[in-house]
């Protein structure tokens, strides 16, 4: 029974990712360098809406769009741009996930 109470490695790993605040690095953002926060927010929102339609939206995207919008409303263009780029990155990642999962799920079905 004590063994059962031990945190298994998998569990711990899952937890780290579940509870950690780490976010994907917004490196490969599509937005042009000169894009304004407002533009990137719109792009993120559009991608997010598409992900929602595919039932694959991430909660993180909505949070980031909201914080970007708040930053923009407070005239913090720099922060708004950072959050908007992250939002766009996660929205695109969720769309890629939706695309991949159209087929990938089959390999997991109990045989």
């Amino acid at each position: 029974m004590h063994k059962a109470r031990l945190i298994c490695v998998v569990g711990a790993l899952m937890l780290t990712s579940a509870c950690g605040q780490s976010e994907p690095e917004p490196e490969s953002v599509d937005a042009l360098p000169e894009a304004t926060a407002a533009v990137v927010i719109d792009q993120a929102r559009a991608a997010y809406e598409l992900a929602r339609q595919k039932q694959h939206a991430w909660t993180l995207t909505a949070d980031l769009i909201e914080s970007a919008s708040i930053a923009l409303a407070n005239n913090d263009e720099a922060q708004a741009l950072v959050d908007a780029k992250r939002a766009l990155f996660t929205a695109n990642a969720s769309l890629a996930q939706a695309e991949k999962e159209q087929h990938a799920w089959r390999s997991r079905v109990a045989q």
Partner: protein
Amino acid sequence: MKISLGIMLTLVLTLGSICSVHADPESDRLAFVRFYTERFPNIDIQAHQDGAYALDAAKREQWLEMEEFPPYELAVDEGEALFALAFKNGNNYAGCFDNAGVGVKQQFPMFDAVSNQVVTLELAINQCRQANQEPELAYLSDEMAYITAYMAFTSRGNTFAISVPQAGVAAYEQGKQFFYERRGKLDFDCSSCHMTNAGNNLRAEVLSASVGHATHWPTYRFKWEQVGGLHKRFVECNEQVGAEGLAPQSEAYRNLEYFLTYMNNGMALNGPASRK
């Protein structure tokens, strides 16, 4: 000669259609059950209806103590009173269900060929209200939880025997896909936690098996401090992996319930239940 040939042909055709209709979900179910019997060789498949409490003796002991006077009792009482209330037109819920609504929860979800969709108990309750010119209940409302709790209580011990007719195969398959599709920032599907890691600890929690996931709803969750339906849990599960939850009783969730409940065929209904 002619007649017997006709009968033969009919038989073959019927057999053929039975096979094409039922082979897939049923072989899915057998594989599903086999997965858990291999993973937990010492646990009777039926025992998984108690979720993580089938897998951890210490937690089970405390839970059983709680079940002596379970927190959903009050909800069942409320539900019984609500269920008996007459609509403005003089009808009541009993008129909308088989056996006056007593002991019928194991029939749900069912595929309704007329409306071409999966009908859960919650949906059927609202259809009943609509048919009697009553406003629909919100799916997360206490009233919905209470009525379903009462209907589950009267159905305890009844065995699930969900069927998937030809017209329902697409809905079943969509539910199955939803189950195995990865979602959210964590890139998890239902099987990541409840198959691959079933029985393992996630911090202090033991991950339950998916077989039995649909037998015990609605459930009083201490975290919610109230009785809630399976779809409320779906939203929570989705959110726990960083995915946005869908609307309770949305088509996707009803299809998921259809798949999950089919996987529970042969198991007994044991709702309402209590969970942490």
